């Protein structure tokens, strides 16, 4: 066993009385990629923040090169050569790319004046060495998500980190971009950098990680070499029980066409989108991030109405200019961004659930509290929301339970058409299975479901049919029987990607 570069011993951390980490130990060796695995709320992000000095542990020690250290804030950890790329992108939208890389440590001349020329030169060199070209004077707000990720990585690289922490770096990257990223990581590993890698995608871990440490409910569970373990074994450790078949999709009898979209176009976002969804059917929508899938969903739901094209519901042409109209027509939309668009974190579960259909719980405009409460309670029960009470604030729930509240809220409107945008992103394995089961049940009950997902196994496992989008166009259409990972990727990427993958 080589000497470890970073060692955590018995780290505990509580927030307002709730213990988030309980005596967690962890060690990291130079030149290894060490994956950190666990469900949401298992304590991975908190552990990362303890390592970077953003949080101070209540109990336990941190050793760097076998010497006891204490990080008061993120400056200390950075000086020690620890860099982190956080889950929430932490760029400065109003600063340009070059400055984003060097924020807080602008190169100076005479120890006083910011040396802009040097800053741009160094940024240029850095991006060159990463093999990417981005306009250095571009403001970060105008970058694509993948570009933002690259700037983040460049920033971490720029401090010559010995320890690099990557918290879900691939969650919004396309496949080829993931491949590029892994090439970079391998490069770093060979140079002796130690990397802590957090991801929900198990397949990735087997590809990139040397060792895997599993956390569950703030407890340390196990550390294993990734070569000596299996997917099922890791899953079991993560969840603490065996997960049965992952995609409980049952074939439901298909009914009439409920939603039909005909040549829908929104300038600059998507062009000539046509498809139909039948009652009882789950239509999967695959594609890369930024392919325009969310834009299509939002325009159908009236948030940003399309500039041309037709939407037909039950065969009748409708015009939908606002979410209110959409709800009135029996549409429901579970958006991709739960915190921003899905729910109102600072409000209780009850008003969150009743919000889209307040009319149902009101006489004239007067809200009938009892009726509302009764309804919210039964909706929460039905979705098996785990919370103390339906009067708990939504922000206090875990990601999975928040998603259940969002689902409860939309199902309470009794929709005929349900649009799900990345329904299982960032939620734990247990809830994920529950959501899949629910989708299957809803389809069996005759709902028409349009599901957007970037997770290929999910799309292929859950959909009756799949359409694939790329850069605003539909580039593929597959029946359940003919869809494979390969041909869906093919349609999603076409020309540029295949070369990169090989």
């Amino acid at each position, binding site marked *: 066993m080589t000497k470890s570069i970073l060692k955590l011993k018995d780290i505990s951390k509580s927030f307002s009385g709730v213990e988030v980490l309980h005596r967690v130990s962890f060690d990291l060796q130079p030149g290894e990629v060490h994956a950190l695995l666990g469900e949401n709320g298992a304590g991975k992000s908190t552990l990362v923040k303890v390592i970077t000095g953003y949080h101070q542990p209540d109990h336990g020690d941190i050793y760097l090169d076998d010497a006891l250290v204490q990080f008061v804030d993120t400056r200390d950890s*950075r000086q020690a050569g620890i860099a*982190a790329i956080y889950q929430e992108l932490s760029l400065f939208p*109003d600063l340009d790319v070059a400055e984003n890389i060097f924020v*807080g*440590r602008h190169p100076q001349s005479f120890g006083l004046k910011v040396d802009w020329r040097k800053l741009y030169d160094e940024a240029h060199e850095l991006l060159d060495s990463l093999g990417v070209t981005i306009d250095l004077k571009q403001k970060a707000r105008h970058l694509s998500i993948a570009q933002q990720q690259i700037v983040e990585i460049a920033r971490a690289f720029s401090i010559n980190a010995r320890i690099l922490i990557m918290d879900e770096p691939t969650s919004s990257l396309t496949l080829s971009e993931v491949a590029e990223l892994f090439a970079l990581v391998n490069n770093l590993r060979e140079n002796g950098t130690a990397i802590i890698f957090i991801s929900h995608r198990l397949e990735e871990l087997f590809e990139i990680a040397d060792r895997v440490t599993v956390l569950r409910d703030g407890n340390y569970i196990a550390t294993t070499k990734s070569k000596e373990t299996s997917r099922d074994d890791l899953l079991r450790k993560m969840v603490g029980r065996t997960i049965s078949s992952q995609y409980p999709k049952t074939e439901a009898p298909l009914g009439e066409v409920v939603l039909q979209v005909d040549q829908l176009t929104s300038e600059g976002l998507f062009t000539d989108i046509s498809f139909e969804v039948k009652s009882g059917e789950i239509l999967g929508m695959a594609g890369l991030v930024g392919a325009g899938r969310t834009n299509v969903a939002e325009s159908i739901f009236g948030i940003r109405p399309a500039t041309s094209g037709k939407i037909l519901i039950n065969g009748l042409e409708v015009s939908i200019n606002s979410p209110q109209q959409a709800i009135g027509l029996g549409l429901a939309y579970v958006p991709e961004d739960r915190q921003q668009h899905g729910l109102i974190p600072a409000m209780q579960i009850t008003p969150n659930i009743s919000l889209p259909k307040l009319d149902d719980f009101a006489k004239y405009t007067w809200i009938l509290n009892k009726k509302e409460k009764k309804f919210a309670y039964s909706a929460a029960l039905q979705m098996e929301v785990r919370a103390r009470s339906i009067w708990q604030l939504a922000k206090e729930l875990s990601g999975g339970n928040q998603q259940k509240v969002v689902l409860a809220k939309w199902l309470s409107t009794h929709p005929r058409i349900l649009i799900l945008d990345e329904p299982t992103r960032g939620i734990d394995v247990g809830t994920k299975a529950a959501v899949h089961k629910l989708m299957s049940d809803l389809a069996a009950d005759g709902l028409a479901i349009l599901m957007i997902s970037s997770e290929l196994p999910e799309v292929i496992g859950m959909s009756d049919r799949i359409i694939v989008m790329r850069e605003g166009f539909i580039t593929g259409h597959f029946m359940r029987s003919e869809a494979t990972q390969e041909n869906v990727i093919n349609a999603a990427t076409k020309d540029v990607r295949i070369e990169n993958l090989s």
Partner: protein
Amino acid sequence: MTTQISRRTTPRINVWDLLARFREVGIIVFILLLGAVVTLRAPSFLTVNNFRDILMNISILAIVALGQTIVILTKGIDLSVSSMIGLVAMMVGFVMRQYPETPIFLIVLLGMALGTIAGSFNSIIITFGKVPPIIATLGTLSVYRGLVFFYSGGTWVNSFELPQSIKMLSKGRLFGVPNLILIALFISIIVYLFLKFTRTGRNIYAVGSNVEAAEYAGIRPQRIIFLVYLISGLLSGIGAVLWVSRFESAQTNTALGFELQTVTAAVIGGVSISGGVGTVTGVVLGAILLGIIQNALTLVRISPFWQLAAQGLLILIAVVLDKVIYTRVARN
């Protein structure tokens, strides 16, 4: 990845883009157009004397608006600047009346110190007390104004009670240019250098752009926020001394309502109320535009009573135009 990214970032330069990137250009164009129209109606607009007047009128505004700008860059707002000016002006006035022999540089230093202390009180409430800036400074707006009354017992310091030295501070000339204008220019340059060429200056933009990210990047946002209200107080203190000098008096209602003018100058100058965006050049131009409008309305004989309405309308037009330009850019 390389190919894809470089393809996405091919720069597309057009008029809207330019206007959005160089906000200052838009203001200059507007100033020139306005100047042309006014000159046609009133040729006396285009004279050196008139321009000197305009600049004299906006010098103090520009100085204090720069402080306001630094605050707004961090998503804050300082409504108390007018009361800080009132308080410092009164205290400086009292000292000058009592000790007319005090050297002028000491008086300036005193004004700066008093302003900074008033500003630091805002800083403490906002950073340690976690009071939202708009509320904290709304509170101190009344508190400082109340202190002016309490301090002076409702009395004024009049022109004849003030020594010549303070009056000459703004009215003296160097190469024919009034000191006041030179001081404003000097301070603008200092603030420009500070915001553009020091780490602290850049950190102010970073904090305003994304507080959490700034913290991840090792910046201490609370320190930056503490600092900006201090600077706003400092510049208000300087503004107060200049105010006494220019108007040769210290009254209980000195600078009443000035806070909104400073915000106006900043907003017209392209400072975004949601933080992180704004330049010194823009704000100075914004203040100049305000001054020119006021001057032009007088020259073309628009009743002084309608001038305030015209100013308000101008702010509305400026922000709406700004929005339109940005939407255009976003659409491209």
